[in-house]
C-alpha cells in the first residue's frame, strides 16, 4: 500500500546550518514546514570530513539566527565534530521539524505545486528550499583515468588521514585550503609531497596581529553583495583561500610548504604514459596570488588609517611566493616513486534528484541571490550566494532572513499562506 502524500507549505532539503537557519526564519514567520535530511542533523560534518579538518573562520564568526558562539575560545577554529555539535545544538534550540533518514529522490512541478519524493513517503508543497550543500561530490578531473593502476587515488571527501596512505611519495593536486592543508599534513607524516598549483588564493592567517577574517569582516569584504561583485561567476568558483585553523594561528602559504620540503610544481595538465605533466605557468599564478593578496592588505591598511583601531601592529608585507627557478614540468609515477594521488580539486553539489529545469549547461542551479527562476524554489548554502559571507556558516544569518522574507511574500501572493 502506498503511503499517503502529505502536504506542507514549505519543504527544506537538508538539515545543515543553511537549512536550519531558513527553518528558524520560517518559524519566526509562523510558516509550517518540514526539513528532510538524508542522515542525521549536520550529516556531512559527522561522516564526510577528514580527521584534521577545522573551519577556516574563527569561532566568533560562527553564528546562526538567534545563536552565537558561546564557548570559551572565540578566536579558535572548530573541528568537524564541534561544528556537528554546534549545528545539532541549534536544531534542538529552535525545535527544528527535521525528518532524519529521509532521502529526497525527486523534486518536480506538479499541478502548480512541487512534489518532493523521498525514500519514505512523498510530500506536496508550495515552496522548496534546497539546502543540500555545496560539497556533495568531489570534482575529480577526467585525467584521473590515466593515473597508472599501481597508484592509489583519494579525493578530498574520501581522504581521512595520512596514515591511510601508501608510504611512497604523494602528489597533491590543487592548492586550495584543502590542497595546502593535505600537502602540509602528509609532509609532516614523513612522506615526500609534490603539490600541483594552479590559480589559488593566498592569505595570511593573521595580519597586523588580527585574524584575516576579522579584517574582512570589519572592512566590509564579507558583506559585498552578489550584485556588487565584478565577476560573480569567478567569485563563486574561486578556490578556497590557503588558510588553516590551528591554535598557533600559523599561515600555510606555498612558502610555508616549501620550508617544510614540499615540492611546488605547476597545475596538473595531463598524464601520458605514466608521466604527469605540469603547466609552465606556475610563476604567473603565484604572481597573481601575491598581487591579489597585497591589494587586499592595502585595502585593510587604508581602512585602518581612516578608523580608530586599537592594538593593531604596523602595516607590513609578506615575502613574495618563492617559485622554484626551474620547477619541473613532469613527474614519472614510477621513477619518482609516487604511491598516491590526492585530488584536492574542489567539490560540486549533487542535483541528480532535481527534476525542475533550472540547471545551467554546467549543472549549476541558475539563481539570483538564491532565488531561482522557478517560483517558490530557492537554493541556499552556496559560495557567495547573496554576499561573500554566504560561503561561511555565519553567512546564513542574513541569507536566511532575506530568502525567508521572499518566500513568505511568494506564499502570500499565491494565496498558499494567508
Amino acid at each position: 500500500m502506498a503511503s499517503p502524500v502529505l502536504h506542507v507549505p514549505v519543504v527544506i532539503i537538508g538539515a545543515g546550518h543553511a537549512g536550519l537557519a531558513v527553518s528558524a526564519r520560517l518559524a519566526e514567520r509562523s510558516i509550517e514546514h518540514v526539513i528532510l535530511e538524508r542522515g542525521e542533523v549536520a550529516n556531512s560534518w559527522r561522516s564526510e570530513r577528514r580527521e584534521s579538518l577545522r573551519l577556516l573562520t574563527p569561532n566568533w564568526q560562527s553564528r546562526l539566527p538567534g545563536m552565537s558562539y558561546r564557548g570559551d575560545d572565540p578566536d579558535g577554529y572548530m573541528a568537524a565534530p564541534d561544528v556537528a555539535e554546534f549545528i545539532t545544538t541549534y536544531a534542538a534550540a529552535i525545535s527544528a521539524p527535521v525528518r532524519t533518514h529521509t532521502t529526497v529522490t525527486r523534486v518536480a512541478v506538479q499541478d502548480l505545486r512541487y512534489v518532493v519524493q523521498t525514500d519514505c513517503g512523498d510530500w506536496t508543497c508550495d515552496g522548496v528550499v534546497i539546502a543540500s550543500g555545496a560539497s556533495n561530490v568531489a570534482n575529480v578531473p577526467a585525467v584521473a583515468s590515466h593515473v597508472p593502476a599501481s597508484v592509489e587515488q583519494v579525493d578530498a571527501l574520501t581522504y581521512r588521514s595520512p596514515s591511510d596512505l601508501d608510504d611512497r611519495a604523494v602528489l597533491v593536486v590543487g592548492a586550495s585550503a584543502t590542497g595546502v592543508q593535505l600537502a602540509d599534513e602528509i609532509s609532516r607524516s614523513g612522506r615526500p609531497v609534490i603539490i600541483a598549483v594552479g590559480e589559488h588564493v593566498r592569505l595570511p592567517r593573521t595580519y597586523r596581529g588580527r585574524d584575516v577574517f576579522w579584517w574582512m569582516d570589519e572592512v566590509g569584504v564579507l558583506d559585498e553583495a552578489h550584485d556588487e561583485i565584478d565577476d560573480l561567476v569567478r567569485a563563486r568558483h574561486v578556490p578556497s583561500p590557503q588558510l588553516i585553523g590551528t591554535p598557533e594561528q600559523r599561515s600555510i602559504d606555498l612558502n610555508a610548504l616549501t620550508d617544510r620540503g614540499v615540492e611546488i610544481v605547476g597545475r596538473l595538465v595531463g598524464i601520458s604514459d605514466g608521466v604527469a605533466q605540469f603547466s609552465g605557468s606556475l610563476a604567473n599564478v603565484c604572481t597573481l596570488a601575491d598581487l591579489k593578496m597585497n591589494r587586499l592588505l592595502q585595502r585593510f591598511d587604508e581602512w585602518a588609517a581612516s578608523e580608530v583601531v586599537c592594538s593593531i601592529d604596523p602595516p607590513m608585507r609578506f615575502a613574495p611566493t618563492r617559485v622554484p627557478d626551474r620547477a619541473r614540468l613532469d613527474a614519472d609515477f614510477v621513477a619518482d616513486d609516487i604511491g598516491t594521488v590526492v585530488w584536492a580539486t574542489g567539490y560540486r553539489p549533487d542535483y541528480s534528484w532535481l527534476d525542475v529545469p533550472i540547471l545551467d549547461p554546467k549543472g549549476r542551479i541558475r539563481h539570483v541571490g538564491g532565488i531561482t527562476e522557478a517560483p517558490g524554489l530557492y537554493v541556499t548554502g552556496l559560495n557567495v550566494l547573496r554576499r561573500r559571507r554566504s560561503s561561511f556558516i555565519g553567512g546564513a544569518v542574513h541569507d536566511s532572513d532575506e530568502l525567508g522574507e521572499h518566500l513568505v511574500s511568494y506564499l502570500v501572493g499565491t494565496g498558499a499562506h494567508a
Partner: protein
Amino acid sequence: MTETTIPVDNGVNTDALLGAREQLSGAPEAAEFTWVANCSWVNGTFSQTTVDGFSGLGQEHRHRAPYTFDADHPECFASEDRGATPPEILLAALASCLTAGVASVAQHRQIQLRSVTATVEGKMNVLGILGADPDVRNGFNDVTVHFDIDAEASPEDIQALVAQSQKRSAVFDMVTNPTRVAVEVG
C-alpha cells in the same frame, strides 16, 4: 580649479569584448572557433604560410586580406635565410598575444598606455633537433619575456596587467601546457 579627464583610449573596444563574453556564455556553440593556416613548401627549408579564412560565431569569416608568413632556416644552418625560423614565429606569436592582452586589460582597467615593448627569448639546445642527443628536447628549454611598459599606473598595477594578460593568453596557454596535435597525410 577644474580638472579635465581625458578618456583612456588604448584603441581596444572592451565594451564589445565584454558584450561578446556575456552573449557567448549563453550560446556555447557560437564560441567554438577554428583557426586555419595553409603552408606550401617552396624550396629547401623555405616555406610560405598563409592565413585567410577562419570560422566562429556560427559562420565563416575572412581576414581583411590574406596574411603570409615566410619561414626558413638561417645561413649558419646551411639554408638561405629567406624568412624567420618557425621557433621565432612562435616567439612572435607569444609576444604579440601577451601584448594584445596588456592593451585589452589596460583598457578595461582604465589605464592609459604610452608605450609597450616586449623582448622574448627562447633558449634551445640544437642537439635535440639534430638528433645528436636523445636526452635533449627539440623545443625551447626556457622562454623568457621581458616587458617595458610606460603607462599612467603604479608599478604594481603594471605588474598586474602583465600577470592578467598571461592568464588570458591563448599562446601563453599553448606554450605552457600540452596540446593534442594530430598530423595526417593524404
